[in-house]
């Protein structure tokens, strides 16, 4: 059975990954749709979105500290205007996780938008549907399997985010200590290998369940679309 500490770690991981995916989903859909179209500056936006994949996660965390820390431009503004402080908090862990999983989401959703038959948009246009109407009633539902699969994959990846979270939100049990952070902590203690292994198995199982679940969901929805 799971110990109280394990349950706490799991719950932190779930909460952080859940909110990270939920909050980054709308901007990810918007950016993915934009990237599935032709426009000037597309390469630059594409590069910016994928930056967290290329940069060392610790550096991403550090950049977040520079921006959202007490003396960072955004952090100072948030604290003065709304009394919100993100660094070293649960919300900060969510922000760091969201930034790291954002490219994964965008990539999956963009592929779904690109796969949707563009000729259907023309068909909707001659039925008097405006561009926003077409996006909401044709593009979005047709991309739904890809969006869902992307969200589940991003969720599974978000549960395991380490570098950016520990740098920006630190490793506070019950607050920001997610699964990988907990593994890291117990490994620092003498004789913690057994506990680390238990956590590792949990992490592995959850990740696999997420990936397989995403694949099954996507297949089922695609079957419905193709009849």
């Amino acid at each position: 059975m799971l110990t109280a500490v394990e349950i706490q770690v799991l719950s932190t991981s779930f909460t952080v990954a859940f909110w990270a995916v939920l909050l980054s989903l709308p901007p990810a859909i918007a950016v993915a749709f934009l990237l599935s179209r032709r426009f000037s500056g597309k390469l630059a936006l594409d590069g910016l979105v994928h930056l967290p994949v290329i940069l060392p996660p610790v550096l991403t965390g550090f950049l977040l500290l520079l921006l959202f820390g007490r003396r960072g431009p955004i952090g100072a503004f948030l604290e003065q205007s709304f009394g919100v402080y993100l660094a070293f908090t649960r919300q900060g862990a969510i922000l760091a996780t969201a930034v790291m999983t954002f490219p994964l989401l965008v990539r999956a959703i963009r592929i779904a938008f690109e796969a949707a038959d563009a000729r259907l948009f023309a068909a909707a246009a001659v039925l008097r549907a405006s561009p926003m109407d077409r996006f909401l009633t044709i593009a979005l539902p047709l991309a739904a399997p890809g969006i869902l699969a992307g969200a589940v994959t991003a969720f599974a990846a978000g549960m395991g985010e380490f570098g950016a979270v520990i740098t920006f939100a630190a490793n506070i049990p019950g607050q920001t200590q997610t699964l990988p952070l907990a593994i890291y902590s117990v490994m620092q203690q003498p004789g913690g290998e057994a506990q680390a292994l238990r956590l590792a198995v949990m992490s592995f199982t959850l990740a696999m369940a997420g990936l397989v679940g995403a694949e099954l969901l996507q297949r089922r929805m695609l079957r419905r679309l193709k009849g």
Partner: protein
Amino acid sequence: MTLSADLQLELGSFRLAAKFSAPGDGIAVLFGPSGSGKSTLLSVLAGFRRADSGTIRLGGQSLDALPPHRRGLGLVFQDARLFPHLSVRQNIAYAWKRAPEQKRPDIEAVARFFDIAAQLDRPVTNLSGGEKSRVALARAVVAAPDYLLLDEPFAALDGARRRAFIQVLLDMHRNYRLPMMVVTHDIDDAAALATHLVVLKCGQVAAQGAFLEASRVQEFQAMLDSSDIGTAMPAAALRSSHHGRSLWLRADHVLLAAEEPRAVSARNVLAGMVRTIIAESEQSRLVELDTPAGAVLARVTPDAVRELGLAAGNKAWALVKAHAL
């Protein structure tokens, strides 16, 4: 509503310069071989492509500045383009919700008209080709456009199914009083549907006008395959099982007699007078005959012309097998 356009567009080496006017009370056929710019013209009319210069007017109103969804033009594509995530009913309702309130037809009645009432609650992904085309038509009608463009909507159908579909188009035009322009490169389809003809050749309008007259113009005949050369004849003037406004009578399918034929198997015998004899080649002559039902072309050999004593001003009879119609 009259649809008229005078527009110019350059696409690489292709130049579209189309000036035409299609009346609002019939079916105009936009005729031309593949590569003549029919689909390009349609996409400019619908607003998916911008012309370099020129103007498009529908019922006196300029469409130039309007995006596709505000032009009031319907468009039925070659492929039905039904929305795969919606049922048949939802596809039709998609158009209904966006149609002007005072013009919305009843979905059930439209479904009955197009013989798809039994399919309303099925997903569109497992309909037959003919059913998909009819759902696409129903959806276009429910959108209540001011003018409907159809881009070879029967391209995927053949034989009997194609003829049945043409009948559906004619019934639909009569029932919903919808002005339409149908794109085709098939002369039989054109004859069955058209009251008006717009002929497109290499991006230019080569001929236009009422179908029976415009189809006789040399520019139009010159575009046809040699075996398709002929004349249009009102369907009512001939004994035929065919539906449609008129029939295309191919010169190859018409026999000539110098005396009134009796006891022949040909179902249609038309008396007339030879107007001209055109030397097509060394082996063939095109004889143009004026009959009360209209002009008829017959392709015969020079020997036949000599032996029958055919000459301008002489009486002759045209014989047409019912099978040829």
